[in-house]
Structure formats: structure tokens, C-alpha cells
């Protein structure tokens, strides 16, 4: 250092940045080229040799950055090294595992674990649904006028206390006009229900109150419908009509509500953690469960759109519905081996 400072004053001053650039520029350029290739195409565009060189070049660039920050005043140099290291960091550390492995992990471990972790909230939501249903049932059973205030006109589709038994029977067993487009109907149901579920989940952020209200309301309408059909002597048929897809759909809605409640309570009652840390933990844990809910609703949509319209026998409808419920319960809550222990990091 001092040798340089002592040189004749007329010689061009040589600064650290210049020396540093000449010494390392080729390494940076190579890393830059490799990163550009990965970003434009994919990691597969690199040869084995380049792939092995990547981490070394990354560490070289990182150490260059540290040195440049401490010894050089060339801002262009530090800015360049910062973006180079950042891009390299994302390529080396930030890239998720391959989509297929993520999917396998999701179905085998991530989804059931995430739902199981929500069991308390799920149970609470199921109870809430049941309370709502019972309330709706009793209200309408006492005074059919309640039916009109609980169920909006658009939703009833002619199913109200003034309808004849034959009309109501038709809505359960009849060849509906949608029969010609079963697949489309199923898809419509799936997309619509999924939007509602995502919505119920997102609303949980407001201290879970909207999620709870949505669940109770869902129960109320269900109870009102039940009361209507039971009063006309069509109870068992209606329950069958509902069970075939309802076990899956209501379960999914309960899980979505549970996920919302988890977030809402984490925000409202963070416990020992900071509010944000608690929210992040709850948010990540429930994200997986929500992906599962969308899958469940896809199945529910298929059962409702296609299964219910083609299966007209009560016994079969009950059978399919209960079998689905049993399958979900086994999938979520049956104890598993310790093989997927690391997955708990996601579920917790």
C-alpha cells in the first residue's frame, strides 16, 4: 500500500477498484454468463463442469463483494457485485424443488399433515356448522316464514314452503335441465365453491369473525332446507341428495374456515411470539391446507355435478357420501409412521 502512495506524484493514481477489477473480472463475467443462461433457459442449459463451478464462482463473488465494500469507493463496482451475488444466491438457494417432487410431497405428507394440524379448529367449525344447521332447522320448523328470510330468492330455485311435494321431489330426483351438460355443471360448481372457500380463508385475517359468520350462515341455510324437506316428508331423500357430495364439500368448507380461524387467532392472540411472526407461521401452515381444500372441492364438484345426477338411488347416494367421508378421515387423521418427520416443519 505504502509503496503505491510513495510513488512519484505525476504517475496515474492506481486505486483498489482498478487492481481488484483486473484480478477478478474474468470470474465475475463467467458467473454472470452462467446466471444469464440459467435465467433465460434453465439449470439444464449448463454443462456438468459449469454446474460444479457455479458454487465456487458464487463464493468468489461474495468475497469480492465483501472486499469491495471495505476497500473500494467505486460505486458501480459494488452495485454490480451486489446484483451478481443476489442473482447467484437466488439460483443456488432460492429455487424450490422440482414440481413433481413438490406434488408427491404435497399429496403424501404436506396436505394431510396440514389438515391434521388444524384439527381443533376444524372440530370447532364442524360444531359451528351443526349449531347453525340445528338453529335453522328449528326456526323454520316453528315458523316457515323464517325460510324466506334465511334463503335468498336466487338460491332457492323454487324450493320454498309454498312448493308442492311433487316439485320438491323433482329437485331431488328429477332429470334436471342441466343433465345435458353434467361436466360443465360440475366444473361450474367446483370453481364457484373454490372461490367461496378461498374467500372464507382470506376473511379469517379480520380476527376470524367473518369466517365464523360465513360458517354459521352456511349452517342456517342448510338447516332451513332440511326443515322444509322434512316437513313435506322428503327428509331422507334430501339428506341423500346432500350427502353424496356434501360430506366432502362441507368438510372442505370447515377446513377452510378452520384455516381462517387459525390465522385470525394468530393475529389477535399471538401469545409469546410477535404478532407478525405468529401470523407468518399460521399463514404458511394454512396455505397447504387451502391447496388441499381446492382439491377437495374439485372432487365435491364432480360428485355433485356428475355423481348426483346419474346416481338416483338413495342407498347409493348415502353409500358414496359416507365412503368419501370415511376416506377423508382416514387420509387426514390415521396415524402414520415417522417417515415424513421433516414434513412437520410445514404442518406446524
Amino acid at each position: 500500500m505504502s509503496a503505491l502512495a510513495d510513488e512519484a506524484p505525476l504517475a496515474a493514481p492506481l486505486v483498489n477498484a482498478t487492481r481488484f477489477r483486473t484480478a477478478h473480472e474474468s470470474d465475475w463475467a463467467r458467473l454472470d454468463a452462467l446466471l444469464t443462461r440459467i435465467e433465460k433457459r434453465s439449470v439444464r442449459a449448463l454443462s456438468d463442469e459449469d454446474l460444479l463451478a457455479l458454487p465456487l464462482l458464487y463464493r468468489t463473488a461474495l468475497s469480492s463483494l465483501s472486499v469491495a465494500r471495505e476497500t473500494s469507493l467505486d460505486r458501480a463496482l459494488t452495485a454490480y457485485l451486489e446484483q451478481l451475488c443476489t442473482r447467484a444466491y437466488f439460483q443456488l438457494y432460492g429455487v424450490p424443488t422440482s414440481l413433481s417432487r413438490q406434488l408427491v410431497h404435497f399429496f403424501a405428507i404436506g396436505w394431510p399433515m396440514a389438515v391434521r394440524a388444524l384439527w381443533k379448529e376444524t372440530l370447532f367449525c364442524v360444531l359451528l356448522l351443526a349449531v347453525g344447521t340445528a338453529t335453522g332447522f328449528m326456526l323454520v320448523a316453528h315458523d316457515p316464514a323464517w325460510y324466506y328470510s334465511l334463503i335468498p330468492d336466487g338460491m332457492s330455485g323454487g324450493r320454498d314452503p309454498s312448493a308442492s311435494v311433487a316439485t320438491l321431489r323433482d329437485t331431488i330426483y328429477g332429470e334436471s335441465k342441466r343433465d345435458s351438460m353434467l361436466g360443465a355443471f360440475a366444473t361450474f360448481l367446483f370453481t364457484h365453491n373454490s372461490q367461496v372457500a378461498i374467500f372464507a380463508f382470506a376473511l379469517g385475517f379480520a380476527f376470524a369473525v367473518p369466517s365464523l359468520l360465513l360458517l354459521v350462515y352456511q349452517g342456517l341455510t342448510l338447516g332451513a332446507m332440511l326443515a322444509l324437506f322434512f316437513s313435506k316428508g322428503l327428509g331422507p331423500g334430501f339428506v341423500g341428495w346432500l350427502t353424496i357430495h356434501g360430506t366432502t364439500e362441507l368438510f372442505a368448507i370447515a377446513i377452510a374456515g378452520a384455516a381462517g380461524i387459525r390465522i385470525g387467532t394468530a393475529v389477535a392472540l399471538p401469545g409469546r411470539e410477535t404478532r407478525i411472526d405468529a401470523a407468518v407461521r399460521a399463514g404458511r401452515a394454512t396455505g397447504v391446507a387451502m391447496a388441499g381444500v381446492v382439491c377437495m372441492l374439485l372432487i365435491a364438484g364432480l360428485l355433485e355435478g356428475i355423481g348426483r345426477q346419474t346416481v338416483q338411488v338413495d342407498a347409493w347416494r348415502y353409500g358414496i357420501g359416507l365412503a368419501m367421508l370415511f376416506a377423508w378421515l382416514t387420509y387426514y387423521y390415521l396415524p402414520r409412521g415417522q417417515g415424513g418427520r421433516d414434513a412437520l416443519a410445514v404442518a406446524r
Partner: protein
Amino acid sequence: MRWPWPASRPPRNLQGFRRSFVTPEGVDLRLELGSAAARAGAFILDWVIIVLIAVAATLAVITLGIAGAGSEILAVIWLIGLFVLRAGWFTLFEMGTRGATPGKRLLGLRVIARDGARLTGAAVITRNAMREIEVFLPLSFLGQQTAQGAADGFLVLFALLWSGIFLLFPLFNRDRLRVGDLLAGTWVVHNVRHKLGADLVGSAAARPTRVFSEAALDLYGIYELQTLEDVLRNARPEAITTVAATIRRKAGIADDGDDYGFLSDYYAALCARLERGMMLGRRRADKHSRVAVR
């Protein structure tokens, strides 16, 4: 001391959107957060692309339907397609290796986990599910009400207030977090590729240099040096003339007619001097900080 801040304090705008982000190797990358404007721009871009695709798909389905293709299959594909577009566009793109939707990529943004770990699918799902209540809920609600002609003043006001709280949420916290970012533990950073600028000192070394007095080099600190670097790199004639005139006036140097050459030489000399000071533990942040001159 200068009113109203102590002079040693770094300029606010330099620190504003830089966030510490330490790699496992222990180096702080000092990531720059995406600005609210860039993020809003990215969202609008994405939304425009989504709407264009949706319209194109709808037109295609209609023409195919008129041509007499299987209407049910078409309807299924159309419904699923729209759902995937709306619910999956952001999620699927952000789960990919680039961590950004096309709109974000165009504006040089990227989603990352705040804790430095890899971005998980769960975080991306949560982040984007929240968009439902942030943007789509008030918009679709408003649209529905307007379509029915039932949008009275109170409802409109409520919808605007609701979306206002969530839309402007990023402006009210230090890290520009959306509600979704907050819950998912993510943030959006600038991730732009740029080239290494030419070495200013190295290029100055090729020519015979001017010699500056100690007093002339004692005028400025690191902040001014780096501002001068920007002036030289941008090379706007009027800026160079102004800066050169100012430095000459302060240092009492006669005008020799070569502004750019003068500034390059001054930059090189000042840079060498400040660096030398830095190596000896005397870092001079800007022209206001006093360093004992021997």
C-alpha cells in the same frame, strides 16, 4: 452539526429501501425492496395480460362453439381455464424458479421469503389467496352492484374504503408489505441484471494527468465522490459543465477548456486519496465530516 440533522447521519434516501439479508456465508446482500409504484405497475400488467387471455379464450370458445365442436367439453375447458387464470396465474408463476409473474419480471421484481429460506409453495398460496380480499372482492362486489343498478352511495363508499385499506396497506408499513406478504412471510425485492460499468480511474490512467493540491482534494468526501462518479457515468454535458465549474471555483483552479478530462482526473485523484484514508481507518463520509489533516 447542521440543522436539523447531525451531519454524520447518512442521507435518508440511501437507506430507505435497502434491507439487510444475510446469506449463509455471512455476507449481507442489502436487498432493495420493490417500490410501491413498480409493484402496482406489475399487478396492472399481469391483470391486463390475464384479461387479454380471458377475452381471447372466450372468443375462441365462441367461434369453436358456432363451428359446432362439442359444446360441453368447450364449456368445461373454458370454466377451468378461467379459474386457473384467476386463482393460479400468480401462484403458479411465483412457485416457478423465477419467483415472479410475467408482470413482475418485466419490472425487475421477485418474491422471496423474508427469513432467507427458500420460497415454499405454501407461502405463495397464502400470499395470493389474500389477494381475493385485497382486490378482487371489492371490485367484483362493486361490479355486481353496478350491473344490477343497485350500487347506492353507501355501498360504493364501503367498497372503496375496504379496498382502500388493503390496497394502500403497503404504503403504511416500512417494508412495503401487502397483507398477503405479511401473512406468508414474503417480500418483493428488486432483482435486476446490469452490466459492470467501465473503470473510470483505469481509463484516466491512460492520459497525462493533472496534479491537484492537498487543499483541492480536501474539499470533498465519499458521498461527493460517488455523486461525481454518477455524473461521469451519465455524461450529460450540462451536468459535467456545472460540476466542473463548481469544483474549479472552490479549488481555485483555472479553466482549461476540457471539463470531462478535468473531472476524470479529479475523480481519480480524489478516489485514490479517500481510499488511502479509508485503509488507514479515516473514512470521510461526506464533505461535512471533518477528518484531521496532517
